């Protein structure tokens, strides 16, 4: 029932971004089955005999009272994973063929991920908004009010310029000096080789990098019945296009681009997911939780 709140077309009717995020995440979480893989509270793991130097706060005093032996209580703890969202705010993200633009979709997704990370997982989350420059940077944190700073940053992220991955990526390096999860949300209208070359260095600190390729469905399967004049949202260049080309060569080029994006990012050890703006948002959330479980939920720790 609550799954329907993951539909971007429905979320478009909600003006407040935090409410969007809460709706998405709560609906997503409520739809999950109870699973040992996705625990959010601290769970008991084992008892270990006390050795000198151990923190006395972890001693199970109840057991000590019954058995007069000193044991430490160990829990399966979840390590905090720093989540950094890189949001493309170039003009091309304004494109839409229905109610939800790519930028809206990206905002919903970013807001939901931030909410899930901070509110549910207690992970520090940060945001970098970029086009051909870094336009906004919010340092990852779990401080009070971090979620609202992130949502405000997302609200202010209006598409303005054209995309240039190479230039802002240089600055990303200085921001991302701690390992964590880096999610890049963009429409990636650039050569896959250039994109991979620009983003790959983010992995060098040990971060997991995942690319969310957001496209409008009509960008993948365009329809055109007659000749039309098209204008590029980023460069304002105009072009006369005929339907025959769109039906044949454009689709072939787009398919090849998507395929190459998938292959090159995976080859570089990065995750890649193609998301269309008419699809629910749960896929991104699922991916995020899977990443936390697989790569960044290691070891046992005290509660």
């Amino acid at each position, binding site marked *: 029932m609550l799954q329907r709140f993951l539909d971007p077309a429905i979320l478009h009717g909600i003006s407040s971004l935090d409410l969007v995020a809460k709706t998405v995440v709560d609906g997503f979480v409520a739809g999950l089955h109870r699973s040992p893989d996705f625990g959010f509270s601290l769970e008991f793991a084992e008892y270990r005999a006390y050795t000198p130097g151990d923190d006395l706060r972890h001693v199970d005093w109840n057991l000590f009272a019954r058995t007069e032996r000193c044991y430490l209580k160990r829990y399966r703890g979840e390590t905090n994973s720093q989540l950094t969202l890189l949001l493309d705010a170039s003009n091309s993200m304004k494109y839409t063929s229905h109610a939800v633009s790519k930028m809206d979709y990206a905002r919903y997704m970013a807001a939901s991920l931030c909410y899930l990370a901070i509110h549910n997982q207690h992970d520090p989350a940060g945001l970098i908004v970029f086009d051909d420059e870094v336009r906004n940077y919010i340092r990852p944190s779990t401080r009070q009010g971090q979620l609202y700073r992130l949502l405000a940053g997302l609200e202010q992220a209006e598409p303005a310029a054209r995309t240039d991955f190479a230039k802002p990526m240089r600055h990303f390096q200085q921001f991302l000096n701690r390992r964590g999860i880096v999610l890049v949300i963009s429409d990636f209208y650039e050569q896959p080789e250039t994109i991979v070359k620009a983003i790959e260095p983010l992995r060098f600190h040990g971060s997991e990098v995942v690319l969310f390729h957001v496209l409008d469905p009509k960008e993948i399967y365009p329809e055109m019945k007659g*000749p039309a004049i098209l204008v590029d*949202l980023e460069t304002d260049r105009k072009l*006369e*296009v005929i339907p025959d080309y769109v039906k044949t060569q454009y689709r072939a080029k787009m398919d090849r681009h998507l395929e190459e994006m998938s292959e090159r990012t995976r080859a570089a050890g990065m995750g890649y997911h193609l998301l269309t703006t008419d699809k629910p948002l749960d896929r991104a959330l699922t991916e995020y939780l899977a990443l936390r479980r697989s790569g960044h939920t290691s070891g046992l720790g005290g509660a």
Partner: protein
Amino acid sequence: MGFLAPWFLAGLLAIGLPVYVHLLRKQTTVPRPVSSLMFFEQGTQSSVRHRRLRYLLLFALRTLLVLLLALAFARPFFRHKSVLASDKLLLVAIDDSFSMNAASGPGATGTRLDDARRAALEVLSHRSPGQKAQVIALGGQMRLLTQPVEDSNELRAAVAGIAPGDGHATFGELGRGMRAMAESVHTPIELDLFSDMQQPNMPGNFADMVMPGNVALVLHRVGPAAAVPNWTVESVEAPGQLVDTKKARVLAVIAGHGTPAATRTVSLIVNGAAIATKKLDVPANGRATVVFEGLDVPYGESRCAVKIDSADGFPADDSSVFAVKRADPERVLFVHQASDTRSPLYFGAALAAAAQASFVLQPITPEQASDIDPSKYAFVVLSDVPSIPSILENSLIRNVQDGGSVLVATGLADSHREHIPVYGGDVADAHFYTRGSAEDAGFTTVGESDASHPSLKDANAWQGAKFFYAAAVDPGTARVAARLADGTPLLLDQQLGEGRVLLFASGFDNVTNDLPLNPAFVAFVDQTARYLSGQQRVSGARVVDSFVQLRNPANAASGSAAAKGATVDIVGPDGQRPLTLKQAAAAESFQLAHSGFYQIRFANGRDALIAVNPDRRESDLAIIPDDVLKLWSGSAGTGAAPAATESSTPPENNVSSLWWWVMLLSLVAALAESGLASRYLGTQREDL
């Protein structure tokens, strides 16, 4: 080429509108945005050319549409020389009215009709090769004698076959006929009219004789150019039926048209023998009346005439015929109550006082009338009898359906009874005006009367009659001939089968009204008796082209037994029967087309001898003034065609309007523009 309304060409400025719209559309074309042109390539030039071509075509169509609309309103036309002579229809109209029987000139032996036929044949012989012609006779009616044909023999035979007629021609009929013809014939028409151009042939309204635009009228006058003096027997007044030959008198009016004062000999002829002759002084261009006392005719029908020795050029109108029937007095059955002695007294006195009526009243009470055969009586009067023996009522109804007549008077006795014998209706109410409001004097009078009804020719005299009682009868389908001041029907005429029932809603005594004491009562009884006995229908003389009713149309339409199989028999003046057997079994009326005597047996079995005279307006041989003729011929077509004897009009410039063609092209352009524009708009809705 020219324009009838060139100021509408200012509408060509509207061509700027499509120009503006197309320029505007080009400027406001909104390219559709895409995220990136990374995967797009420039389309081929052919697509752009195709679209531009389509825009140009649409622009051209819109411009053409505006241009054509402006042209259509400007009414373009082009002049061309007169159409080929062979394309013009030649109409030869010959006046065969009664006046065309007059001599063609002083001392001439031929008639005007002979001259007209000769001139018409001359025109036909000079027509262009291949030109179609049509022959028309203009008598009492316009008759098409041929179809438009090229066959000279057929046309000449039609002209030669035009016999002298007795009708009265009117050029108004010709004008109406030509206007009707012009609606179906779109080629130019040349109408050659051969006539004596008699003044009485002019209609009352000149506009009636104006010809339509595509008719060129050429007038050919035959006969003398000036009016010819002519004496004629203008009218004869004689009884249609008489009993006492010594009391009968014949009154004839002798008229002179353009004549000097002269003494004319007037003869009264009965069955071919002159029984009386009188000398009469006729004033110059005036009228005189001669009276013959006594009309000694044998029993039965007699063919009579009043004749003058005019010694003028138009001997055909020197006599006027009339038919007289001598018979024993016809009996009228008067059924009244035994207690009512006044009604037969008043009615009988009035019937006896009537000059022309020849009826004997037979009063009888209802009880005595049981075994009476109504068919032996001229008509039957039911005077205030609330009930009659059923055997009498049935025989009366049968008699009426076979052509008999009944006069019903509803007096005070009927006020207590609803059903009216024979008539079939009911007395809805009884109006006693003696007990009326105080504002009147206790009586009412006749409010309105139909002077065209045969019983009420002198209806104005009824105005002085006072009515104290009247039965209120629902008129239904009956004709209401007279009403009282309060609207109560007073005299109703109901057709029943072949006969009729006349209902007088009051009594014939002097209790219910004082009409019997009024002089108008005699005239009413006389006219009613003649009307109900059938003398009205057959007596006197008729005019050529008038109609006589042979059977009741309603009865014939309903197919009643009385009408089925009842044939009429007509013997014309020439001794021939003009109707075929089929026509005789079904014809409702007959047109008396010739002068003379018609022997007619009607559907109801009655015989009549009807005398028919030509319309005496034809005897006035005055000529239409030349200026009027010029005006008339000038009113036809676009060019003036004065009275002349030329056989063809000179060539003239004809104007052909292109309006229809321009509008047709506009329609085509509009349809093409709609189709193209809809395709264009469909492209605009595409989405990427």
